[in-house]
């Protein structure tokens, strides 16, 4: 018999005390509250205490609090009487909302208030086009749309109340493919508005002339997927009103100026009556740049007279926050025998999902950056962004750049291979230089793309014969 494996199971033996006696009371006291260690000398001269300050590898003052678990993120905040909100998600990509019945939910013990799109004073917002409702009105545009919200004394009661809300839909055929959406015959996602809601053109030089002079012409198409930011901390906000009609909102928003403008609009409250405090945000990456739950908790807090908090579940992070634009990218490039790019045409179709959000910025950046960090005389780049009935795309680290970089750099390698030129060498031959003109004709300064190519090549041990050393 070998009991070796389980013998070391030691569990602390705890003397049980009946609650009520003095020790029992002491055990219950919330005295586990963390202690605050007094700052210690560090092992090295503190970069933070040095002058000059710039170029120092200074540690972050917030790092100590993070490491101790003492940083107060929004989910760590509680206000007396606080209610918890949950949002009912449509679960259908495109539909007309015929009826929302919240009466059963409202009857539940512990449910304090319910709101729907009808309760939102101005039910539209967005950083450029105001095409996004706070909660669905007459239409659902994607499956993650909110259709009603509940404030209850616990999160669990709020979650169970959502099950009691019934919504009647008239399903509509969803548009799910950006290229289908691009076609004129497709019914508009936001009819009568067209599906193409953004368009950008960059023209530099004469591409036809460039292609005519080219030794070879290469064509390729690329496509990228929809991805999520995945901040470890979910979106969350807390709202509370004072008796003067002023609302304070704690939130995980990275842009409080825009947030206040959107709240003033959707709540129809003057900006001077809105205070937004962004808490320490647990990851953003572009995903926390616009309002999500803030107007909802503000409305519920107003209706109940109590602080209201709403935290996204992890699934809501995926279905109801913004995502990265999938892009369909067509490239055509004319080169000399030596691999110098003479002309390049590009067509980009960005999938915007159900709402515009930060699509216009993404469209412009993707289009401007799409030729790559190369000195190209003749460029024609054209980009479209279209609606689909899918999760809205928006700001995400790189605004279209990772997508087009994947395309132009894959394309570059294929050209290099076809011309039998080393991939590093072809890039060096074409790279932008100090004073080069960008695709928009801007004279560039502090251009170091060649330096980064050479530095990375040296670090990696890149040698022209194809082997990493």
């Amino acid at each position, binding site marked *: 018999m070998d009991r070796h494996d389980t013998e070391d199971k030691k569990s*602390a033996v*705890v003397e049980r005390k009946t609650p009520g006696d003095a020790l029992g009371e002491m055990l219950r006291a919330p005295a586990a509250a963390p202690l605050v260690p007094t700052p210690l000398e560090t092992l090295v001269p503190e970069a933070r205490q040095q002058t000059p300050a710039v170029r120092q590898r200074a*540690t972050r003052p917030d*790092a100590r609090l993070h*490491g*101790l*678990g003492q940083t107060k993120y929004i989910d760590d905040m509680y206000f007396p009487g606080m209610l918890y909100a949950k949002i009912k998600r449509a679960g259908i990509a495109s539909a007309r909302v015929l009826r929302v019945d919240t009466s059963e939910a409202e009857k539940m013990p512990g449910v304090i208030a319910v709101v729907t799109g009808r309760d939102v004073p101005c039910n539209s917002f967005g950083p450029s086009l105001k095409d996004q409702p706070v909660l669905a009105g007459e239409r659902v545009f994607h499956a993650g749309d909110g259709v009603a919200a509940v404030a209850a004394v616990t999160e669990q009661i709020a979650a169970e109340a959502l099950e009691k809300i019934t919504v009647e839909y008239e399903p509509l055929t969803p548009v799910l493919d950006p290229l289908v959406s691009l076609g004129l015959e497709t019914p508009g996602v936001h009819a009568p508005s067209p599906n193409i809601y953004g368009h950008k053109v960059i023209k530099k030089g004469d591409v036809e002339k460039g292609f005519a002079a080219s030794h070879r012409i290469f064509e390729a198409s690329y496509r990228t997927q929809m991805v999520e930011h995945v901040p*470890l*901390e979910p979106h969350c906000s807390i709202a509370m009103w004072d008796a003067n009609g002023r609302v304070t909102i704690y939130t995980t928003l990275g842009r409080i100026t825009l947030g206040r403008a959107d709240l003033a609009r959707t709540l129809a409250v003057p900006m001077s009556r809105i205070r937004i405090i962004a808490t320490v945000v*647990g990851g953003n990456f572009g995903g926390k740049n616009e309002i999500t739950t803030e107007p909802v908790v503000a409305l519920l807090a107003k209706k109940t007279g109590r602080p209201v908090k709403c935290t996204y579940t992890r699934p809501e992070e995926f279905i109801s926050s913004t995502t990265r634009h999938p892009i369909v990218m067509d490239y055509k490039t004319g080169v000399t025998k030596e691999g110098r790019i003479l002309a390049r045409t590009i067509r980009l179709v960005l999938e915007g999902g159900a709402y515009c959000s930060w699509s216009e910025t993404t469209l412009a950046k993707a289009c401007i950056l799409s030729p790559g960090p190369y000195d190209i005389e003749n460029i024609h780049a054209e980009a479209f962004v279209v609606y689909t009935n899918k999760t809205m795309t928006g700001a995400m680290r790189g605004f279209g750049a990772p997508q087009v970089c994947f395309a132009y750099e894959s394309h570059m390698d294929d050209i290099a291979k076809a011309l039998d030129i080393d991939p590093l060498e072809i890039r060096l031959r074409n790279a932008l230089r100090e004073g080069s003109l960008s695709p928009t004709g801007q004279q560039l300064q502090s251009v170091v793309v060649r330096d980064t190519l050479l530095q990375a090549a040296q670090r990696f041990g890149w040698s022209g014969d194809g082997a990493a050393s």
Partner: protein
Amino acid sequence: MATVTLTLNGDVRTASVPPETTLLRLLREEFGLTGSKLGCDVGDCGACTVIVDGKSVNSCLMLAVQADGRDVVTIEGLATMSRLHPLQQLFEDKGSLQCGFCGPGVIMSAKALLDENPDPSEQEIRDALAGNLCRCTGYSKMIEAIQAVARDGRGEPAKSAV
């Protein structure tokens, strides 16, 4: 209601909670120890990692009643009044955390690793952190910090922020 009595960061504590309360909620809501985070609530992200009877666990997957009679250590239990835990010190010195939300969980996973294996290889460190998702750091500076703590533990000079 269920009564739970446990050793929490060295002190005996007790609380009455509904039976469906998770250990994470017990820590955060009953004891005010909000260092352990709720990131996914289903054991994927590891932000709620605490050490129970010497083993790292997802406190979102454990019921409070299952912790009854056990020894629980949370991020709040590592430092003393006058001294940070070496992991806390090195995570600070190396810039290992960015938004910090995953940090307490990562540090608890690292502590559980070093308690059992004071001299882990890089692969063993990566394996120990695989249950802690981080979106900010790419894990590199966390691994560096853990290696530095391990080096220090072996009597080699700790290399701090250069």
